[in-house]
């Protein structure tokens, strides 16, 4: 692997009572790469992302962002360090317009939003960031439509746009293709690939064709453990992975 890791976890563990959802995971995520995390349902992928984003505190272990320990820090503090997060269940503001959704993201970059008198839409820099994010997620034509009239695919694009408006350097994407038709999924994959060069991307995804065609690195999680990490080609031929996951569970792409 080349380059310093942007995120590095060490022995990252999270227990829920007797269940160890994430079990001593030590991984490195490097800038400019799409690092996919795959695994069967309940493997601990979402929990792992929650530990990175601060939505959950680790039971033990560490998360370093550019060398700085962030395990246990609050969600908003981690977000402000440049970690963007999208959720497995679409998570936008349904009654706000697409622009307003992105504007909320862009406004989060102000040093503080404890500003009480000047109208929010008079902040030209924030507006420009929001427009840029809208065009990045290819929703400029939907600018003034409320998010709840968008199609499922468009809503997922908007979620990405809202996140991009905060100008994150790290993107944690939890099943961005879930529930999408082929055309929508193709568009979303294009978007993600386009972001790879200047972001660190952690991609959790069940769509194996998509993962194997876009990821630079793949980690296979099973039962909370990071079973194996490698290039798509290496993962595809790994006997351990085949036995634990690909062969047993869902349809693996033909080798």
């Amino acid at each position, binding site marked *: 692997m080349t380059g310093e890791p942007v995120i590095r976890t060490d022995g990252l563990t999270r227990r829920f009572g007797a269940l160890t959802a994430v079990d001593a995971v030590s991984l490195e995520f490097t800038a400019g790469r799409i690092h996919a995390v795959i695994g069967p349902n309940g493997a601990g992928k979402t929990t792992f992302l929650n530990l990175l*984003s601060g*939505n959950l505190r680790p039971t033990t272990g560490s998360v370093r962002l550019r060398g700085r320990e962030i395990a246990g820090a*609050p*969600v*908003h*503090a981690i*977000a*402000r360090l440049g970690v*963007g*997060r999208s959720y497995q269940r679409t*998570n*936008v*503001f*349904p*009654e*706000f317009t697409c622009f*307003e959704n992105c*504007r*909320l*993201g862009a*406004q*989060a*970059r*102000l040093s503080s*939003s*404890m*500003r*009480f*008198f*000047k*109208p*929010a*839409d008079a*902040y030209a820099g*924030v507006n420009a960031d929001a427009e840029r994010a809208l065009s990045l997620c290819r929703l400029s034509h939907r600018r003034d439509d409320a998010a709840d009239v968008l199609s499922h695919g468009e809503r997922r694009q908007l979620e990405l746009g*809202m*996140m991009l408006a*905060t100008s994150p350097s790290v993107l944690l994407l939890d099943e961005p293709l879930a529930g999408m038709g082929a055309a929508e999924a193709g568009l979303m994959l294009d978007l993600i690939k386009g972001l790879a060069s200047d972001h660190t991307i952690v991609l959790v995804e069940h769509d194996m064709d998509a993962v194997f065609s876009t990821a630079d690195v793949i980690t296979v999680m099973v039962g909370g453990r990071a079973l194996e990490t490698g290039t798509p080609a290496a993962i595809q031929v790994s006997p351990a992975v085949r036995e634990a996951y690909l062969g047993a569970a869902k349809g693996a792409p033909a080798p």
Partner: protein
Amino acid sequence: MKPRLDGRRAALAAALLALALVPAVADEFYVVLFTKILVLGIFAMSLDLLVGYTGLPSLGHAAYFGAAAYAAMVLAPESAPANLLLTLPASVLVAALLALATGALAVRTAGMYFIMVTLAFGQMAYFAVHDSPYLGGSDGKLLFARPVVAFGGAAILDFAEPQVYYLLVLACLAGSYGILRAVVQSPFGRVIQGIRVNEARMQALGYATYRYKLASFAIGGAFAGLAGYLAAYQAEYVNPKLLGWQESGLALVMVILGGVGTLHGAVLGSAAIVLLQEFFSELTSHWMLLLGLFIVGSVIWLPHGIVGIRAWARRARTR
């Protein structure tokens, strides 16, 4: 977009002008009634900031209303009128600080727990006053006179006349509306509205939501305090009921009846409740029952409150 906005401005200006003319054309009885509407309108607007914009359904908002009313009483001289320029800001500050202190705990909770915690704080404030002989206990206390605006010992404006007091209250309502309207359109206002819809998402975008909820709670408390100060001097009397849960509940009914998350709806709700109380109580001694039925009916048939009537009528016509 633009013409509608200007239409709204014109409607506001017309409403303000009409209200300003009330003392010139109406009997003193109506001037006093309208004063009550406007005072409770400020109170209901302050609650709308919490309920309709921040998503904090407080059931203890009267604590801040009453706290400022009692502060006005404590700060008033025994046998001379108080100076409005000193006692009004001081009373508002008392309410805001109390809201800040209680809100620091309350806004950590959500949903049903938030309702319970605010209710509990409200009742604590009620009993603190109720059980204090110094504050007049359950009987309350009379205020010597309405405040005056004084500069260097000389009173230059006197609010003893109900008509003049009405104009003071109207100016406070207009100012409160202007400030709160600016606040909900500011970056801060956008953040609290985002929190109402989805607080977790706001955190993931990088907002420390606790601070914004607390600031909103304190601002709401401050404007409730302004209303409480004005209420105390309208009646020239304070009593513990000003802090009770009935008063909090009444404000909540006004907000819901008028239309949540609109500000001006809260004032319309206040007008509806005060006028209906007056109207029904002349009809029958069972007026509470009539008012209750009216509220139930309007919540069923007017889910968006009085401000939703236009859209509702438009739908009814096209049906």
